[in-house]
């Protein structure tokens, strides 16, 4: 039977929980808050701990719920989500490129130069320009390379939902990289 010992939680689990949160939300302040909320929620519900899982597994399951809550919060956020760009026509020509958003050829010199620190920070800038939920799903799938199934389970979304987000994120990123890097 496992037992809980909250006095040791921070020394034993804070790094593990913090790393788990950072790779998902990509923001150190939000990750710190999530870890704190997890420990507090753990204290409050300690009486419900049945000892079937380890302390760490139990705390992670709390953190997972906090991450879903966070995703729901950014998902419902108005404002930034609404500035997302449309690249395709609707109505009669539905699904065709909007003329002024058509991809341009890239300057071949910059295209070759891909081993570059500046390039990596430009990618971060472009990802940060995305609506928050696109950035989160894109990073989890592309940068952290999580399985589709895992992301869907963790964020409680469907695969088709995930692919729509990935598509929009990448289309917007391509356009941002074109303006700020390839054809600068």
């Amino acid at each position, binding site marked *: 039977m496992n037992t809980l010992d*909250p006095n040791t*939680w*921070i*020394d034993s689990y*804070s*790094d593990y929980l*913090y*790393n788990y949160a*950072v*790779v998902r939300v990509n923001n*150190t302040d939000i*990750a*710190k808050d999530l*870890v*704190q909320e997890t*420990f*507090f929620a753990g*204290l409050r519900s300690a009486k419900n701990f049945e000892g079937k899982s380890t302390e760490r597994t139990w705390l992670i399951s709390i953190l997972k719920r906090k991450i879903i809550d966070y995703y729901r919060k950014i998902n419902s956020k108005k404002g930034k989500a609404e500035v997302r760009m449309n*690249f*395709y026509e609707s109505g009669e020509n*539905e*699904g*065709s*490129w909007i003329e002024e958003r*058509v*991809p341009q*050829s*890239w300057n071949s010199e910059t*295209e070759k130069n*891909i*081993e570059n620190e500046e*390039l*990596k920070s430009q*990618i971060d800038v472009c990802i940060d320009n995305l609506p928050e939920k696109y950035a989160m799903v894109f990073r989890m*799938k*592309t*940068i*952290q*390379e999580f399985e*589709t199934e895992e992301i869907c389970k963790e964020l409680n979304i469907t695969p088709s939902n995930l*692919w*729509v987000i*990935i*598509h929009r994120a*990448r*289309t917007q*990123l*391509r356009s941002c*990289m074109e303006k700020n890097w390839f054809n600068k």
Partner: protein
Amino acid sequence: MFKFLKITCQEANEICNKSQYGEASFSEKMKLEFHIAFCKICALYTKQNKNLTGIFKRKSLDCKEHTHCMSNNDKELLKEKMKQEMSS
């Protein structure tokens, strides 16, 4: 003929993005190939998208080498808050 292969640019690029992760089905890939044989814009998009995938891959390698830890300072602060929470 070939009507079943006909898709819009938007659909083509959705498939293109899915296939960057190796997760597009065979019939989806057929549709995409058919589309970009005729559509220069989406052919360019597809080419650039592969290029971006390579760049993201390098970025991913960089990021995954890195494990994030909480600073000792943050841990001490958190311990204080825990103490308060436990005594309240």
